[in-house]
């Protein structure tokens, strides 16, 4: 199989902080790879190294078949990148951005205009093309950012938290475009995100990173099947029955509290199902007003691998690539 990205033992150290601490990964051509982790996990630093903006401290990385250290210009010619925070000039229009970007990539004058028009249409910014970027919404900026990353027809696309701060509608539109790029144009996509849903919906495979190390990797379905088991959440009809409910639920696995009113149990194996819980509650005459089976999520995977939830893990260390 041909790989778009091959990384072996990648390390990046900032003074005494190992922001990336020995990463190994491969991304097949045309694949969407989701790099999931909390803030400060090392996602952006990895992207900066893979896009040649930062030299690695140790290890090797090949992108589009080229070494990121010795073949930097070739790597850059093969990749497009939309880095964290759409880096746009508020005083220029969308069209002027594309004009600049196409010129810097050495695209011929005639082709520059055609390419710009095509990309503006593709990301739905034709009508706003001549407005200054400072009047754009967050979603429009992200779409322009994506268009700029595509001007030279890259084989590999790096998207660093592309939907952070976007409303659900803008997020869905961007997901659709990224999916189309991979499926129809065969573009390899390396996507960092801290959103579980984004990785789940968009990525063919997911690598979960924490403290600079990949703690789990696989398809979202395989990761969830491998690590996590469903959770049953119940709210007793009579709050007095809460201790009794807890005693019954803990027969099926590890007890957790989802909300002050409810109790939940992560089923401990394949032997138990929702029906078993219902039968046990019925036999014990515990009445519940709410009973729900939660499918395992990538957060369960993260929890199982790190002992923390993804939401709560974010503020432990700064995102190194942003402070250099």
């Amino acid at each position, binding site marked *: 199989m041909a790989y778009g990205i091959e990384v072996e033992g990648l390390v990046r150290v900032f003074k005494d902080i190992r922001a990336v601490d020995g990463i190994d990964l491969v991304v097949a051509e045309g694949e969407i790879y989701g790099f999931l982790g909390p803030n400060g996990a090392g996602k952006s630093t990895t992207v900066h190294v893979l*896009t*040649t*903006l*930062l*030299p690695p401290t140790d290890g090797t990385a090949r992108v589009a078949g080229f070494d*990121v*250290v*010795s073949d*930097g*210009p070739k*790597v*850059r*010619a093969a*990749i497009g*990148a939309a*880095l*964290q*925070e759409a*880096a*746009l*000039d508020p*005083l*220029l229009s969308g069209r*002027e951005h594309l*004009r*600049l*970007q196409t*010129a*810097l*990539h*050495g695209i011929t004058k005639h082709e520059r205009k055609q390419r710009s028009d095509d990309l503006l249409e593709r990301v739905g910014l034709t009508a706003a093309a001549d407005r200054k970027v400072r009047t754009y919404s967050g979603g429009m900026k992200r779409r322009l950012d994506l268009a*700029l990353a595509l001007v030279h027809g890259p084989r590999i696309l790096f998207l660093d938290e592309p939907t952070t701060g976007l409303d659900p509608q803008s997020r869905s539109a961007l997901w659709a475009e990224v999916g189309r790029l991979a499926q129809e144009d065969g573009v390899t996509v390396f996507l960092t995100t801290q959103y579980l849903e984004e990785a789940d919906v968009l990525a063919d495979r997911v690598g979960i990173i924490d403290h600079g190390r990949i703690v789990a990797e696989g398809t979202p379905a395989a990761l969830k099947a491998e690590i996590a088991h469903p959770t049953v959440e119940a709210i007793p009809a009579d709050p007095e029955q809460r201790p009794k409910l807890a005693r019954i639920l803990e027969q099926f696995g590890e007890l957790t509290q989802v909300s002050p009113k409810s109790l939940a149990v992560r089923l401990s194996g394949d032997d138990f199902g929702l029906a078993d819980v219902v039968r046990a509650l019925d036999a014990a005459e515990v009445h519940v007003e709410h009973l729900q089976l939660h499918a395992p999520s990538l957060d369960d995977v993260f929890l199982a691998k790190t002992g923390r939830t993804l939401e709560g893990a974010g503020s432990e260390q700064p995102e190194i690539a942003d402070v250099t």
Partner: protein
Amino acid sequence: MTRLQVASLARRSILRTLRQPAYVLPPLLFPTLLVAVNAAGLRPSTMLQGFPTDSFLAFAVAVPFIQGALFATMNAGTDLARDIQNGFLNRLALTPMRGSALLAGHLAGVIVMGFVQSVFYLAFALAFGVDIASGPAGAVMILVLATLISAGFGMLGAFMALRTGSGESIQAFFPVLFIFLFMSSMNAPRNLMTVDWFRTVATINPVSYLIEAVRSLVITGWNAEALLLGFAVALGLIIVSTVVASHALHVRMTRT
């Protein structure tokens, strides 16, 4: 391709400058206001024996050319620092753009603005009755020298931006540049300065020679020594600031 890169970055730099009134108006208005106030208040200085002209405005009109160039330091630096802070420099670094194209393109806005400012100051001087002793060719020489000075200070601003990556740092440094201006021969010929330490400071201050080169074209005519010193300082500033800015860019853009 480098020519296209420079032209594209220059276009952006010029557009950015023209679209920010705060970058255009203060460099035009403040120096002319200052020279107008000084010309009115310090007119009696022309009575001093040995004062080179009987018009203080003619004597002082060289100052706006330098003061305007100092604004170039802040404006060019702040713009580049903003590019660093918001990640735009990373976007550029991911293209095949050469570092030299970035600096050259970035400087284009400074040069255009420096030229426009110089034309404005010259028109101001002529409108208020200043005769250019060196004639029309001298007026052209003033524009050339003033534009070079703007380029030198603009590159100094680019260096500071690349070194610090902070627009705030550049703005904080801006008043320091004005100390160089005030500690120069801006308001009095050096040979008439009676305070020894001030005359010494003004003599070792390179800004004095920039002012005196422009001043010589206005009030004296073609003074080879003054012009040589002025152009040497301007070109020296361009060379030194370009070298340090190039190094700072190399450090800042650590792409492989």
